[in-house]
């Protein structure tokens, strides 16, 4: 079983976010990047599957500050291969990223591709379905739990309201991970250090990033104060009467 886990780094919300003078992007001067939390779960799920049934886990990421440390940490947890796409990804959206991952993953020929189901900077759709489309593979999202069964898997897909579906998918397939079966594990820093000395990160240069199909950002802005809310006072009956009056005034009733 070969498992590929494409992951991405997103802005760290511990730092204040500021908007670039262009008004269409984040100012990257003080921007700090962090692993997308659900991608971290995808890595954990891949390692859990490997521990349960054997196999080889490859973690892939586009180049960014902090990515090397993350890849080495993944290796210390049990990942076998580390691949870093190199190039200028500063303006890469998920369409571009999906295509770049697809090119490398085609060559890896994995049986299963796990990635975080979403990220807080997904402006143009999440990576998983895009990747599945470019690879011509089936996709199941919001997965929390995977059972391997020969050349197929049963994915536990979460729905709103506490509903869970068991979806059988033929391999190879792409799964969007909502949560690993257990939280991402801790690995002692001494182990990460040890891995830094032995593990290799394979670099794959990516020259042309193709972002067609994505969105064009017209304006990026902090939440703006609009007109103030009106507080309705009085007994519940009074408030309900006022509310009905307001709805009538606005023409919604």
């Amino acid at each position, binding site marked *: 079983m070969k498992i590929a886990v494409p992951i991405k780094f997103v802005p760290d919300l*511990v730092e204040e976010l500021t908007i670039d003078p262009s008004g269409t992007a984040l100012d990257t001067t003080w921007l700090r990047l962090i692993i997308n939390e659900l991608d971290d779960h995808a890595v954990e799920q891949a390692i859990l599957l490997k521990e349960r049934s054997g196999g080889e886990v490859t973690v892939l990421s586009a180049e960014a500050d902090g990515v090397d440390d993350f890849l080495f940490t993944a290796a210390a947890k049990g990942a*076998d291969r580390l691949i870093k796409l190199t190039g200028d990804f500063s303006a890469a959206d998920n369409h571009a990223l999906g295509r770049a991952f697809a090119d490398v993953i085609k060559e890896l020929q994995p049986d299963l591709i796990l990635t975080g189901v979403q990220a807080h900077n997904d402006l143009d759709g999440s990576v998983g379905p895009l990747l599945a489309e470019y690879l011509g593979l089936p996709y199941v999202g919001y997965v929390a739990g995977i059972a391997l069964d020969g050349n197929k898997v049963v994915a536990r897909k979460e729905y709103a309201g506490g509903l869970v579906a068991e979806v059988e998918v033929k391999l190879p397939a792409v799964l969007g991970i909502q949560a690993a079966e257990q939280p991402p594990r801790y690995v*002692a*820093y001494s*182990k990460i250090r*040890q891995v830094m000395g032995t593990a290799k990160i394979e670099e794959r240069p990516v020259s042309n990033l193709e972002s067609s199909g994505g969105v064009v950002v017209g304006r990026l802005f902090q939440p703006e104060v609009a007109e103030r809310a009106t507080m309705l006072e009085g007994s519940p009956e009074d408030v309900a009467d006022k509310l009905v009056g307001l709805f009538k005034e606005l023409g919604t009733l």
Partner: protein
Amino acid sequence: MEITLSPLSPSVTKTFYTSLFDLQDGERVRTCLQCGTCSGICPFGYIMKFPPGKIIGAIRAEIFDHVLKTDSVWMCVSCNACASFCPSNIPITRVLMTRTKEEMILAGNVPSELQAALENTQRYGNPLGESPRKRADWTLGLQPEVNILGKTRQPVDVLWYVGDYASYHSRMQPATRALAKILNALGVNFGILGPEEYSDGDSQRLAGERGLFEMMAQKNGQVFRKYKFNQIITTDPHAYNALKNEYPALGVEYPVQHYTQFLFERIEQIKPLLKNEIKAKVAYHDPCYLGRVNGIFDEPRALLSAIPGVELVEMSHQRINSLCCGGGGGGMWLDGFQWEKAHTRLSEWRVREAVAVNTQILAVACPYEPPRFEDATKTIQAASQLKVREIAELLAESMDL
């Protein structure tokens, strides 16, 4: 890729036992009398499946793997009471308990609250997960401006290593500002590292994350070397302990004092400035890493006694027999875990002791304590009137700063 797991797999006990001997005074473990003093003095010994003495017993019986199958070592708050009363002078906390926790971490057996603090330390340089850029935000609005060495690059007499909780914790920041005002009032030429300061890492070390501690020590060492100063003072007894007892072996060695020692040396200068009376019975809580571990008992008491109106009283646990606030050795980040096991907190025991001697103020000198004890006064009804104050806060109040 082969990753070596915990070195324990083949002959767990033997590998672990001999690894203790590589540590300073580790061989003293051989001299254990199995008297049980450690397990009796341990504030959580009654709840541990393997309190310290029993761990040594398990090692001798070659069943150390049984210890690793329980999680009771996470009840250890590294308060050093066991080591202080051991008749064989075995460094139980530093060697035995810390190495046992290290094995738990290497085996990936880490309570999730602790994991978050360790990951935060690795990523942000502080266990609270705060932005390193905001580490000096407590100085905002202070006049004169606090000298941040990275900005001014001026040599100073005293480098104040502020520390994690004193920098970030909302309950500690007023105490940190109070100390800045006191230093200014005394005309001390001091500076801080601000965003360049990393966690001292001592509590992470005592929670078993040796590698992370070494990384923090190296990063702090690199920053110290950038600036000119004559000595370091710390707000935090854990930072003091790290700088005094642990960093030198890693090549980072500077004269260091806890702020209570530094102020005590200037007590004659301070006394005339103590104008406002604070009329109260005050009990002083000895922080483990100031008192029991490093022998600083009298300086904090002398500072408190110098404040007009203060009547110093002693609680039943005091000086070398002080009772831990529960925050040490990772306890700060195991609150839920320990509550689940014990259904009590050491901080709650402690405020009950303060109430028992009719104190109005519980005075402290460690940044873990104001938030811990203040929370305890909210859950222990008898302690609802008890005030928890940092010594620096009381001094600044009396000095009208």
